[in-house]
């Protein structure tokens, strides 16, 4: 379809400017919101989904539970009267177990027909454990990927890919802060998926660059990269599109437990595709130029 080479790398400074702007906007909003909204999984606390009888609204529940200062959010259709009630631990001393029982008892006393669809309570030790293992997870993932790339390709490809990955993960993380999405264990899974996805995208282009180098050695490196991106462009766009379709389906009807997860994935797939074209490749070119000097 595309016969002529598109000069993608011409826009690399604009791209870097765009990424920086995005980062600053996300950062400002995150700070404005008071930091990343760490979920019950990581800080410990109680999360209850309750189904209430007709006519009970957020205000009434808040009134009953005012001692606990909970966050209350309605989920699903208006006529289902289902609410998420969550509180976070303030000090290490409290136990979520006791608080959760107290809240349930209070609710059951005040609203006769309340039904608890799900109850989660996470102690501070678990939150800490999950936080640490999530960090460890990213660390291990980055190292393994870097080693694999350095082994299958060359060191510079590994560096370029990692730059793109760090860019994607940072922006996705800040995206959670920007939108106020609660950072939970499923979000960690979403970030890691984006990690793998963006990597996958990058490799397809790098693979093409490597192949083109073997075919023609005389061309200027920049042109060669541009040509490779152009050749892979339809694949990059098509795969992103089909994946977006699937995640969109998830976002639209996946239900409460999946909504935030899908939202982060949607953003991550777009940003991952963008970083493959406009970030990973320029880093590669920059590396090559520095070395040539």
């Amino acid at each position, binding site marked *: 379809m595309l016969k002529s080479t598109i000069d993608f790398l011409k826009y690399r400074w604009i791209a870097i400017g765009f990424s920086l702007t995005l980062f600053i906007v996300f950062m400002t909003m995150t700070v404005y919101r008071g930091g990343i909204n760490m979920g019950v999984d990581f800080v410990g606390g109680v999360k209850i989904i309750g189904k209430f009888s007709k006519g009970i609204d957020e205000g009434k529940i808040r009134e009953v539970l005012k001692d606990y200062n909970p966050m209350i959010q309605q989920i699903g259709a208006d006529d289902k009267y289902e609410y998420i009630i969550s509180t976070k631990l303030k000090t290490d001393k409290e136990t*979520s*177990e006791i608080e959760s029982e107290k809240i349930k008892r209070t609710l059951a006393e005040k609203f006769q027909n309340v*039904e608890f*669809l*799900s*109850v*989660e*309570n*996470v*102690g501070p*030790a*678990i939150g800490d454990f*999950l936080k640490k*293992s*999530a960090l460890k*997870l990213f660390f*291990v*993932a980055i190292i*393994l*990927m870097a080693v*694999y790339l350095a082994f299958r390709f060359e060191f510079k490809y590994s560096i370029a890919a990692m730059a793109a990955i760090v860019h994607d993960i940072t922006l996705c993380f800040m995206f959670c802060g920007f939108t106020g999405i609660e950072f939970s*264990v*499923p979000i*960690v*899974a979403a970030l*890691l*998926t984006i*990690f*793998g*996805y963006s*990597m*996958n*995208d990058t*490799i*397809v282009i790098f*693979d093409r660059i490597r*192949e083109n180098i073997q075919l023609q050695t005389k061309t200027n490196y920049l042109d060669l990269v541009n040509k490779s991106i152009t*050749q*892979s462009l*339809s*694949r990059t766009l*098509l*795969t992103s599109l*089909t*994946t*977006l*379709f*699937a*995640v*969109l*389906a*998830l976002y*639209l*009807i*996946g*239900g409460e*437990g*999946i909504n935030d*997860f*899908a939202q982060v994935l949607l953003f991550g797939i777009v940003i991952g595709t963008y970083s493959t074209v406009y970030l990973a490749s320029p880093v590669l070119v920059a590396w090559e130029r520095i070395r040539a000097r």
Partner: protein
Amino acid sequence: MTRGMIYKFLFILFIIVFSVALILPTVGEKRMQVSFFSDPGTELMQKFEKRFPADAYKIDKEGTSLIISGQNLTDAIMNEVRTYDGVRDAVFLKHWAEDYLLAKKINLGLDLQGGMHLVLQANFEKIEKKMGKPLSDSDKNEITQQALELLRNRIDKFGVSEPSIRPRGTEAIEIQMPGVKDPRGVKKAIGTTGRVEYRLVNDRYSKLATEWLPQNYKGKSLPEEKDDLENLLTDISTGIKLPDTLEVLYYYVREADTKKIVPSYPIILEKKVSIAGDDINKAWVGRDEYGGLAVHFTTTPEGATKFAEVTGQKNHGKRLAIVIDDKVRSAPSLNVQITSGQAMINGDFTQEEVQTLARIIKEGALPVDLRIIEERTVGPSLGQDSIEAGIKAIILGLAGVMAFMILYYKAAGIIADFGLVLNTIFMLALLSWMGFTLTLPGIAGFILTVGMAVDANVIIYERIKEEIRNGKSVRMSIVYGFERAFWTIFDSNLTTLIAAFILSQYGTGPIKGFAVTLFIGILSSMFVALFITRFFYEVISLNKKIKKLSI
């Protein structure tokens, strides 16, 4: 067609047929048997008729139980039915494919079928205080194991169908209980410390009870239901006219394969407690003088006096039962008087039995204080909602991607779509066959792979198109397309596989489920694209005059 291609074709056909058979228990018609405490009244029957309308389900009466059949039945629905008043139990009947083909119904995670997930931690502070020194890691590990034994002992009385109790790290225990009727009761029971006591066995009445049982109780083995077991105890004690100073309890054994602790036979004990659990100081596994396995223990100074009395001459030949939470777990005979406060129990023990016994004795000496540090309970109705939403999302995602592929690639798109359907079947088949658990994030992983699965096809097709543009013949383009795409697909998918693998190592169940589906999805999509789709194109290439490819 060459001979090689015919073999290939037969192989592909076999895999497809086998996979379809494997997913039958999951997607095909399922049958659920519901049993009741007494004959279900009209009110309960109406509830069933309302819950299982005739257009989607069929209700049959079989003896005293109901058989409900339908395609939409799930574990979540089974767990919901179990909570109905008057329902004794609900179980799925085996699908024919399960009997003949090792096929299994797909496991659903607790977030989909409803249930309770608990993480408990032993509180070491009290024990450290009592011992007067900080505990080493291996001590902590041992105490956690001891708590594990206690929990196995305690949990099955709640009628939880398949509880999974396992250690997590050295200090915590993870319990998964699908479909719990009474979450609060379970938590309360888990929170209390165990009570261990040593009481003398009355052999004369024990013999009477063993004789009474087959004559007066019809069942071949002891009843499974908790209430029936209790009632039987009263029946036995009135039946053999038990004096007030004695009491009937059950002797429990651990089933080797399920690790469940089940009642084995009734045994009569004195009500008087000869030795209390905390009269024992220490217990450990060792050898007796003949080299057999034995549990050694020492008593406290007070315990030594009681011990000397109970092991006195008058009791020789009698047995001393070790009772934990009103369950008799062992009853060694008394042979010698022990005044030194140091003794051992020997017998024909296996390593596991002797360790269990030592742990029970230690539990009495140093009761473990368990704290719930994590709880996740999901009701069956929320689980069912998630299943339904998940199925809808999968169908919508599939339809969207398939329509797009046909619009963009025309005939080649149809081949890719066929591959996509196969991929979905293979994934389900692998998941159920290998016994992986499908969770809500797992469904998300499933949908995500639907989107990503066509990637391999896209890479191949784009390459073929490019080769055609470069002026190669259609046949050569196909050959080059597949060849050049192979390593690209391999490298790019391997990174996602690495990510999925790392994720699968990450603690909690639901996320593991996501990683596993992602992993399996990528593997099967590579297989479909590089083997099955390729075969299609090999067949197409047989036509030597082919000039145009619809791609």
